[in-house]
């Protein structure tokens, strides 16, 4: 599957390069043939398919040669260009065309020979372009995968996510509201479906493994227009009621992973949370569900699951909830841009049906791409993506600058040759064309190399993704569109950066150029070179400083005290509801787990909590201080919340500053109690003791009240670098949760982690450990965003530095070889070696200084743009600046010094010899 997905677009792209004279239709036909062959061979064996792919690619150069050969055959001769040969008026036009074609071909051949003759120049230029274009392809591929790529479903632009919006922002829909939308015959919609993530315990051969899937309405597959590759998908009619048949559609990936591609899987029974579900079908291989980046393993109808799990009667009638993500397919005459007015009548219906719960409700639509990440979170990946793109563009600039400087240098060296050709009657336009062809050839080769490198490293980039308990289904390898963009970038950079050197090289005055082959260096050429060098130094300094800022942010975040003790702790996620047993004694399970773990040698404390700080999951609540039944007009205080067992604070290492911990007496039938953190206590009861005070989770004065029995120290709950955030804890016994985390304090973390599956299965074999790790690992994985940024910027910065060093070296070395004659004269007139070195050095360093000043300016601008991602460092951080400048200075000095020393060692007696 992946072979074909990779090979076909690559082949299509390669055809454009290797069969330049073919039409799109022809190429598509060839691609079709290629795809057929690969698919058929893949069915036999992977090796056969791979061999065929390799052979097909290997035959491409031959195809190009054949094309060139044919074009020569067609053009016969370029007699028309020769003076004195009469041209037939009738076929003048075609003759001219043919000459252009064959001229272009011979330009290419000439350029290729030229490159082969100067391997150092060609190598440096190709390396630069490959790095620049490769970095762009990689970054583009990643940004494309994360931000731009759409769901692999037909007419994806008609697919929108529907959120309900009120003054609290965008929220998901309640099932009741979804039903109202689904039941209305309305022309704006071709269909709407609801879904949400669900974790399942999948029982295969006495082994329970955790899989992630979606609970979906029966319209799910219809709305997305996703087909089954085997069996079939379910429909609305057969699933949208209680008592519907328990059925499941598996993902292709799960079928391969857990069922070994069993061809007879359809119709068999699988165990989900110990309930029986019949396999209805296997979804198309390309379909991974609708959740961005997360590969879904299976799809279960909502009603069938509600029956199996015995959801409380009336779960489908509450209008106030917000647990269902809704996705609609717009009718074909609407688009995302003009659809919102059409949804207003629908929103009005919702408000009429449930005036209380749906007060001020509106419906907001999001395109599939931005909504996939959720409207709240879209900002951060977007920012990172934009910064990464900016960084890679910077590297490309440096790379192109490099090539341009090399071309400039070469152009100076070729003035003599150009002058001769000009004197022989070759027009200037013809000279420019030939020089441009050279840079286009360079760009094409460099682009191909870069793309190949990006393909090979796309796996490496994928390892930068967060450590999620889900299957991370993001394919960051550059696809066809990325390849196309890169080809365009390569070509346009060739034209832009090749044009100036070409113009300059072709602007020759034969009289002066031929008058003395050893003129002193051309002033204009030197000026072009200087500009390029200055820009390169500026850009690489800017990216070095940016890297410094991000690395120092990461350091600062790592130094943050999280408010708990990460060392010597084990955390393990589990979900009691995966047992699928509504009669399971959940508090009893928690108690048994705690006592079993406490017995383990070396365990000092253990606790169970619904959530842990810095996790992937979070919950919040609005808190109101309760005083004499008064209702305040405030909106409450938003707090992080968790349900915890006794001993939580000891186990996680957070100090309980005042009051008591929950005890075994805080049972479901006891007084409802809570523990708050200092921040919440300070906000609700400034300058008073919080102990004994009452809080409510709802605004109305007669809502249930909870008594504060303790105050815990603050810690970091969502991000390490967040400002103090209020938090509230309830006893697990009074607010039981199926999904929970075990926290144990032990010096032998590895031993306990190893023993966990055994401990769990001894209590109840139906409850598996979802994800067990040390707290240190947990905290570290919460930093993935920072690390990603630092790695990206670091990689790009390093590339920029290497590139500008190589470029500077190349330019200086060339300048030295061009000025050998001049140096000879100077040396003969009495200039000392020292003087010559100083002269060269001062020129190189002057340029670098100007570049560095410019670079500092760019870095300051970039830094202020990055303000929101930085933590603990100012965007004008002098340490990062100094480090960047120092690193650059060392490299620049080396790149300038080596050629300068060579200049000084020149012997006038050889350089001045005619």
């Amino acid at each position, binding site marked *: 599957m992946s072979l074909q997905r990779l090979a076909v677009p690559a082949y299509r792209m390669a055809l454009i390069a290797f069969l330049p004279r073919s039409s799109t239709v022809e190429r598509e*036909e060839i691609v*079709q*043939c*290629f795809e*057929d062959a690969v698919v*058929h061979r893949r069915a036999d064996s992977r090796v056969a398919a791979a061999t065929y792919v390799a*052979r*097909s690619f290997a*035959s491409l150069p*031959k195809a190009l040669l054949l094309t060139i050969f044919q074009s020569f055959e067609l053009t016969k001769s370029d007699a028309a260009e020769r003076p004195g040969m009469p041209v037939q008026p009738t076929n003048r036009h075609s003759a001219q065309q043919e000459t252009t074609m064959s001229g272009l071909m011979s330009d290419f051949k000439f350029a290729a020979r030229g490159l082969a003759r100067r391997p150092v120049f060609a190598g440096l230029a190709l390396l630069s372009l490959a790095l620049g274009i490769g970095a762009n392809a990689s970054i583009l591929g990643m940004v494309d995968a994360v931000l731009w790529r759409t769901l692999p479903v037909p007419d994806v632009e008609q697919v929108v996510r529907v959120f309900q919006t009120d003054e609290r922002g965008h929220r998901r829909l309640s099932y009741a509201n979804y039903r109202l939308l689904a039941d209305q015959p309305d022309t704006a919609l071709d269909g709407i479906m609801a879904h949400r993530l669900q974790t399942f315990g999948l029982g295969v051969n006495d082994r329970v493994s955790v899989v992630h899937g979606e609970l979906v309405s029966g319209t799910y597959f219809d709305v997305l227009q996703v087909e089954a590759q085997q069996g079939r998908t379910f429909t609305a009619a057969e699933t949208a009621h209680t008592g519907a048949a328990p059925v499941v559609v598996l993902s292709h990936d799960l079928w391969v992973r857990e069922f070994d591609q069993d061809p007879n899987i359809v119709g068999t029974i699988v165990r989900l949370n110990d309930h029986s579900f019949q396999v209805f079908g296997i979804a198309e291989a390309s379909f991974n569900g609708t959740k961005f980046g997360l590969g879904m393993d299976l799809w279960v109808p909502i009603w069938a699951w509600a029956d199996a799990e015995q959801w409380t009667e009336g779960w489908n009638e509450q209008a106030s909830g917000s647990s269902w993500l809704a996705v609609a397919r717009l009718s074909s005459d609407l688009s995302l841009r003009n659809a919102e007015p059409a949804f207003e009548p629908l929103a009005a219906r919702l408000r009429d049906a449930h005036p209380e719960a749906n007060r001020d409700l509106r419906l907001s639509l999001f395109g599939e791409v931005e909504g996939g990440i959720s409207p709240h979170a879209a900002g951060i990946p977007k920012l990172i993506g934009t910064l990464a793109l900016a960084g890679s563009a910077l590297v490309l600039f440096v790379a192109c600058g490099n090539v341009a400087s090399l071309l400039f240098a070469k152009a100076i060296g070729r003035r003599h040759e150009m002058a001769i050709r000009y004197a022989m009657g070759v027009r200037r336009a013809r000279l420019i064309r030939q020089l441009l062809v050279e840079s286009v050839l360079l760009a094409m080769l460099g682009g191909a190399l870069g793309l190949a490198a990006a393909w090979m490293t796309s796996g490496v980039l994928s390892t930068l993704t967060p450590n999620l308990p889900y299957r991370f289904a993001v394919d960051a390898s550059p696809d066809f569109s990325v390849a196309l963009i890169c080809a365009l970038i390569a070509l346009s950079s060739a034209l832009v950066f090749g044009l100036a050197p070409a113009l300059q090289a072709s602007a020759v005055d034969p009289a002066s150029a031929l008058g003395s082959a050893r003129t002193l260096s051309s002033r204009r050429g030197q000026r072009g070179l200087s500009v390029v060098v200055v820009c390169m130094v500026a850009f690489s300094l800017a990216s070095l400083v940016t890297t410094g800022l991000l690395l120092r942010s990461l350091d600062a975040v790592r130094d943050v005290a999280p408010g708990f003790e990460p060392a010597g702790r084990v955390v393990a996620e589990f979900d009691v509801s995966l047992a699928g047993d509504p009669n399971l004694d959940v508090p009893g399970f928690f108690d048994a787990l705690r006592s079993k773990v406490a017995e383990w040698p070396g365990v000092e404390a253990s606790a169970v909590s619904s959530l842990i700080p810095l996790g992937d999951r979070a919950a919040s609540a609005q808190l109101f201080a309760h005083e004499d039944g008064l209702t305040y007009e405030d909106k409450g205080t938003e707090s992080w919340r968790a349900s915890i067992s006794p001993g939580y604070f000891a186990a996680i290492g957070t100090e309980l500053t005042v009051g008591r911990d929950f005890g075994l007496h805080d049972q479901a039938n006891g007084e409802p109690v809570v523990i708050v953190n200092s921040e919440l206590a300070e906000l609700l009861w400034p300058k008073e003791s919080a102990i004994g005070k009452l809080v409510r989770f709802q605004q109305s004065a007669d809502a249930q009240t909870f008594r504060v029995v303790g105050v815990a120290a603050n810690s970091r709950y969502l991000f390490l670098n967040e400002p103090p955030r209020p938090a509230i804890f309830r006893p697990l016994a009074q607010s039981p949760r199926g999904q929970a985390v075990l926290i144990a304090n032990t010096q032998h973390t590895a031993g306990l982690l190893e023993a966990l599956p055994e401990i769990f299965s001894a209590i109840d074999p139906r409850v598996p450990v979802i994800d067990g790790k040390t707290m240190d690992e947990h905290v570290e994985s919460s930093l993935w965003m920072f690390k990603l940024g630092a790695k990206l910027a670091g990689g790009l910065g390093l590339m920029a530095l290497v590139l500008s060093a190589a470029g500077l070296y190349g330019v200086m070395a060339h300048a030295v070889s061009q000025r050998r004659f001049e140096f000879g004269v100077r040396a003969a007139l009495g200039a000392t070696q020292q003087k010559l070195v100083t002269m060269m050095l001062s020129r190189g360093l002057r340029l670098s200084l100007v570049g560095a000043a410019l670079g500092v300016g760019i870095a300051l601008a970039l830094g202020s743009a990055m303000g929101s991602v930085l933590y603990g460092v100012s965007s004008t951080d002098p340490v990062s600046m100094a480090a960047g400048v120092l690193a650059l200075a060392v490299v620049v000095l080396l790149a300038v010094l080596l050629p300068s020393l060579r200049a000084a060692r020149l012997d006038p007696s050889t350089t001045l010899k005619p």
Partner: protein
Amino acid sequence: MSSSNASPALRSHEEALRHLPVKPVDLLVMLSLASEELHGYGLVKAIQERTNGQVVLVPTNLYAMLRRLQQTELIVRCDATAAPNADDRRRYYRLTGLGHVVLQAEAERLRNLLSAADGQGLIDLGSAGGVSR
């Protein structure tokens, strides 16, 4: 191979002779198209089977050949096809009348060649299979 349905636009024998000898791979393509219309991959498969897997064409080479054979009017791309299980995303090719004549002439040429070899005692056509005297 069947000495096929003589096309109404039958070209002269001299014209066919100008195309001789036919390249071995071209001959394979023409042979495969003699009895049925095939698309690109169909041809790859047919030739692979015909040669017991010894000749496996890659797409670019195949299409270079198809283009050449079309330029010389030995085969033609058909827009609508009568082939069973036709797939409209793929283009089908068939042998032209001229193609049939050339194929026949080439077969005749090869038979004469083989007879000559037989006469020298190099091969025994009796056991060569398929080719009758």
